[in-house]
C-alpha cells in the first residue's frame, strides 16, 4: 500500500506525457487519404494494374486529353489544346500547348508524348494490351506514333477502329500520360527504358511532385508550383496504407484522415449518419457477373445457361449485398451509355429454370463449383447463387480464393462457374465493354486470348463477333448505336456465358469540409482543384 502513491504518480505522469484528449484535425493545406496499398506495386504508368496507381499517376502526370468527371463523354483539352481526326478516320493529330514544363524543368514536347506511348508498346507491360487491341505493336510503334515537330503529335491507326475510342483511351488510360523522356532515359538500366527507376520514381508534369513512397506505409507528394494550370491549392497529399475498415472509420471520425477508400459497407452505412462526413459514389465501367465455362458440357447447352440465368436472385443480391458496391444492371454494356438497352428484366424464376434443366436432360440438377474471391461482395453473391441454384437441384460448392487464384483459373479456362468483376468500361464506349466481355475472335485454347473474358468462358458467336467488328468501324453514329443494340439483343437470345448482375460503383468517404473532390469513373480522380473550406 505504501507504494500506491508512487504508482499513481507514475500513471499520472504517463498520461500527461502522452497528452490530453483532443479532436485532431488534418492541416488545412494537406489532404490525407487512408487506403489499402496492398496492390500498389509500381508507379510506372506502363505497368499500372489497379485503380490506386491510376489515381496517383493522374496527379503526377498529365495526359493529352481528359474526360469530364460528370459528363463522361465530353473530351476536354489537357496537354493537347486541340485535335483533329483525319477524313479517312485512320489518324488523329494533336496540337500540344506551349510552355509546359516537367517537374525536372525540361520542356514538355510532342516528342516526349510520342516516346511515352512507344515505350508502353516496347515494354509490353500490363497496359499495352489496350493499345495492341487497336493494332499497335512494338514493331509499328515508331511509324504509327510520330512527332513531326515539338507541338504536333500524329497517331496513325494501324487497323480500322473508331478514333473516338482511341481518344477515350488517351483520356482514361494512365499508359497515355506523358513522361519526361530525357529524365527517364538518364535513369535507364540495361535497356529497360527506365522501368526499374520508374517503379519508385516519377517523371511527370502533373500538379503534384512525388516525394517518397514507403511501400505499405505512406506515399507523399507535394504541389508543383510551376504547374501549367496554376499551382494546386493543397500543399501536400499523403496516402496512408490502412487496410482495416474500422480503423479508417475511427480515424475519419477523429479527423485524422480526410478521405477513406475501401471501407466496408457497414462502416460506410454508419458514416452516412455522421453530419461531418460525406459519402460519395461513382459508377465504374465494370460489372459484377456470373460467368459459366462453355467448355463444360453442361454449360455448352444454351438451356442450362438460360436456367442459371433464371436462378440468380438479382433483386435480392442488389438490395442486400450490393449497396455501396454496385447497382442493378443486367446488360454487358455499361449502365448509362446511349447504346445501352433497357434492362431485360431477368429475375429469379425457379419453375422456369427447372423446366429448362429437365429439357436439357438434368431434371434432378447436377453438381458444379463456383470459384469466387473471398472478399465481399463476391463471396456474398456466390453464397446467394449457391442457395438459389440448390432450389433447382444444382449442388454447387463454393471455392473461395484470392483474385490471383480465381482469375488465374479463369485465364486457364479451368472453371465451371465464376463470380467475378470485369468488363473494361474505362472508355465510355460500348466497344470497351463488349470487347472485354463478349468478343471472342478465336476460340482455340492455343489462341490464348486471355485478356478477353469472352474467350475465357469459351463462348463464341460468329454473328456477334462480326457485328462488334462492323460497329467498331461504322462512321455513322446512329447506325453504330443500332448495331450495338443489336449485339445486346443477340447476346440476350443466344444466352451469353457471362451474366452481369450489377454495375460497379466505388464509394469514397470524406470529410465534409473538402471541396472539389470529384471521383472519376475511370479512376483518374484529380486533386489539383481540391481544397478545404474551413
Amino acid at each position, binding site marked *: 500500500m505504501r507504494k500506491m502513491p508512487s504508482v499513481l504518480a507514475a500513471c499520472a505522469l504517463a498520461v500527461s*506525457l*502522452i*497528452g*490530453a*484528449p*483532443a*479532436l*485532431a484535425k488534418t*492541416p488545412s493545406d*494537406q489532404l*490525407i487519404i*487512408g487506403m489499402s496499398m*496492398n496492390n500498389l*506495386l*509500381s508507379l510506372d504508368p506502363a*505497368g499500372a*494494374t*489497379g485503380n490506386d496507381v491510376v489515381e496517383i499517376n493522374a496527379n503526377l502526370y498529365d495526359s493529352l486529353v481528359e474526360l469530364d468527371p460528370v459528363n463522361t463523354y465530353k473530351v476536354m483539352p489537357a496537354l493537347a489544346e486541340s485535335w483533329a481526326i483525319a477524313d479517312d478516320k485512320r489518324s488523329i493529330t494533336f496540337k500540344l500547348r506551349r510552355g509546359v514544363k516537367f517537374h525536372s524543368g525540361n520542356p514538355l514536347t510532342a516528342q516526349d508524348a510520342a516516346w511515352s506511348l512507344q515505350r508502353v508498346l516496347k515494354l*509490353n*507491360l*500490363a497496359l*499495352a*494490351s489496350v493499345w*495492341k487491341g487497336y493494332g499497335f505493336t512494338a514493331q509499328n510503334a515508331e511509324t504509327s506514333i510520330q512527332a513531326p515537330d515539338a507541338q504536333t503529335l500524329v497517331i496513325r491507326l494501324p487497323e480500322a477502329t473508331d478514333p473516338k475510342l482511341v481518344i477515350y483511351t488517351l483520356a482514361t488510360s494512365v499508359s497515355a500520360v506523358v513522361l519526361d523522356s530525357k529524365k527517364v532515359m538518364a535513369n535507364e538500366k540495361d535497356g529497360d527504358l527506365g522501368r526499374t527507376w520508374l*517503379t*519508385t520514381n516519377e517523371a511527370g508534369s502533373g500538379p503534384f511532385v512525388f516525394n517518397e513512397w*514507403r*511501400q*505499405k*506505409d*505512406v506515399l*507523399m507528394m507535394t504541389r508543383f508550383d510551376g504547374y501549367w494550370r496554376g499551382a494546386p491549392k493543397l500543399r501536400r497529399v*499523403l496516402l*496512408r*496504407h*490502412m*487496410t*482495416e475498415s*474500422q*480503423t479508417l472509420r*475511427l*480515424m475519419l*471520425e*477523429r479527423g*485524422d484522415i480526410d478521405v477513406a477508400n475501401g471501407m466496408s459497407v457497414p462502416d460506410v452505412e454508419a458514416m452516412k449518419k455522421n453530419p461531418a462526413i460525406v459519402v460519395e459514389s461513382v459508377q465504374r465501367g465494370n460489372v459484377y457477373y456470373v460467368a459459366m465455362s462453355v467448355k463444360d458440357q453442361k454449360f455448352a447447352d444454351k438451356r442450362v445457361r438460360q436456367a442459371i440465368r433464371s436462378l440468380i436472385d438479382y433483386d435480392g443480391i442488389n438490395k442486400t449485398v450490393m449497396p455501396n458496391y454496385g447497382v442493378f444492371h443486367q446488360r454487358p454494356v455499361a449502365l448509362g451509355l446511349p447504346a445501352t438497352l433497357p434492362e431485360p428484366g431477368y429475375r429469379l424464376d425457379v419453375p422456369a429454370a427447372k423446366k429448362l434443366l429437365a429439357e436439357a436432360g438434368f431434371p434432378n440438377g447436377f453438381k458444379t463449383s463456383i470459384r469466387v474471391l473471398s472478399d465481399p461482395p463476391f463471396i456474398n453473391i456466390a453464397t446467394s447463387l449457391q442457395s438459389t441454384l440448390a432450389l433447382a437441384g444444382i449442388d454447387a460448392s463454393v471455392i473461395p*480464393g*484470392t*483474385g*490471383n*487464384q480465381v*482469375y*488465374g483459373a*479463369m*485465364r486457364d479456362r479451368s472453371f465451371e462457374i465464376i463470380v467475378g468483376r*470485369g468488363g473494361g468500361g474505362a472508355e465510355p464506349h460500348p466497344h470497351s465493354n463488349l470487347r*472485354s466481355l463478349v468478343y471472342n475472335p478465336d476460340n482455340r485454347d492455343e489462341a*490464348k*486470348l*486471355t*485478356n478477353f473474358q469472352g474467350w475465357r468462358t469459351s463462348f463464341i458467336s460468329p454473328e456477334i463477333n462480326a457485328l462488334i467488328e462492323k460497329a467498331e468501324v461504322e462512321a455513322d453514329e446512329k447506325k453504330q448505336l443500332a448495331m450495338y443494340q443489336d449485339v445486346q439483343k443477340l447476346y440476350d437470345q443466344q444466352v451469353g456465358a457471362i451474366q452481369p448482375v450489377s454495375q460497379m460503383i466505388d464509394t469514397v468517404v470524406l470529410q465534409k469540409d473538402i471541396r472539389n473532390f470529384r471521383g472519376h469513373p475511370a479512376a483518374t480522380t484529380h486533386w489539383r482543384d481540391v481544397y478545404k473550406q474551413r
Partner: protein
Amino acid sequence: MTTLALPAFSSRRMGGLGRRLAIVAVTLLGLLAMTFFIGRVMPLDPVLSIVGSDADHSTYEQVYKQLGLDQPLYVQFGYYLRDLLHGDLGRSLMSGNPVTTDILRVFPATIELATLAILFGTCVGVPLGVFAATHKGRLGDQVVRVISLCGYSVPVFWFGMMGLIIFYAWLGWAGGAGRVDLAYDGLVQSRTGLLLIDSALAGEWEVFRNALKYITLPACILGLHSMAYIARMTRSFMLNQLNQEYIITARVKGLSEREVIWNHAFRNILVQLLTIVALAYGSLLEGAVLIETVFAWPGFGSYLTSSLLLGDMNAVMGCVLLIGIIFVTLNLVADALYQVFDPRTR
C-alpha cells in the same frame, strides 16, 4: 595438469561449436528448401500479381520468363542459393527493391513494437505470476488467472479495436494508426530505424513524445498476450519451487518471506523463464500481423503476409530466413544464459 587439460577442453568446445553451426546451417537450408518448394506449388501466380488479370498472353509470357519461372524448380532454387551465398536475397518481385532493403525498412518498426511489448509482458507478467503463486487459491490468484486466461484467449485484433475505440477515439490518449503523426513524418533522420531512439538521438523530443503516444497502445495490446503466457508460466514454475524442501528449510531458518520468494524460489525459475521470454520475443518479432493490420503499423508481419498473398517468393524467402535466424539466435542466447544462471549446465 592445467596445460594439458586446456587444449582438450578447447577442442571439445570447438567441436561442439562446429557441430552447432552445422546444425544451424542445415536447419536454415531445410527451412529455405521447404519454403521455396511449398511456395512454388501454392496456387499463387506472381506473374498475375504483376501484370494484372486482364493482361494478354504475350505480356504474361514475357514477365513469366523475366522472373525465371520457365526454369526447372531445382535450377531456380540453385540460383537462389548461389545468390544467397553472395549475400543477395534477390529483388522483391512486387516492390522492385532488393529484399534486404525492404526488410531493413520494415523490420525496425517491428523490433521497436515487439521490444516494448515483451518489456510490458515481462514486467507485468512475472510479478503477476509470482503474486498468483504466493497467493494460491485466494482471490488474488483467481483474478490473475482470469486476466491470464483473457489475455491468452481473447483475439488480439478484438483488443486492438477496443483499445482504439477507448483510448484513441473516446479518450484521445493514444495515437491512431501508424507510427507517428504525418506532420512529424520524415522530420527525423533514420539512423537505426527505431523511431523512439532516432528521435531521442536527434533531440526531437516532440517527435519522441508523439511516437511514444502512437506505440504505447499497440505495444501494450501486443504485450498482453505475452504477459498472459508469462504470468501463467511464472505461476506454474513458482508453485513447483515453493513446494520444494529447500523452501521449507529457508522458512525454518527464519528468512523473510520476501527473501524466500525472490532470492530462493524465483532465482531457481530464472532459467526456465528466460527460455519462454526468449521464445515469446521471437514470436513477436516474427510479426504481429493482426496488430500491424489494425494499427496500420508498417512492420515485418504485414510485409511478409502481403508478399505471401501476392506470391512474391523472394520476399517470403528473405523473411523466412530472417525468422529462422532469429529463432536460432534466441535459442543460442537462451542456451548461453542457461550456463550463466545454472552452474549445473557449465
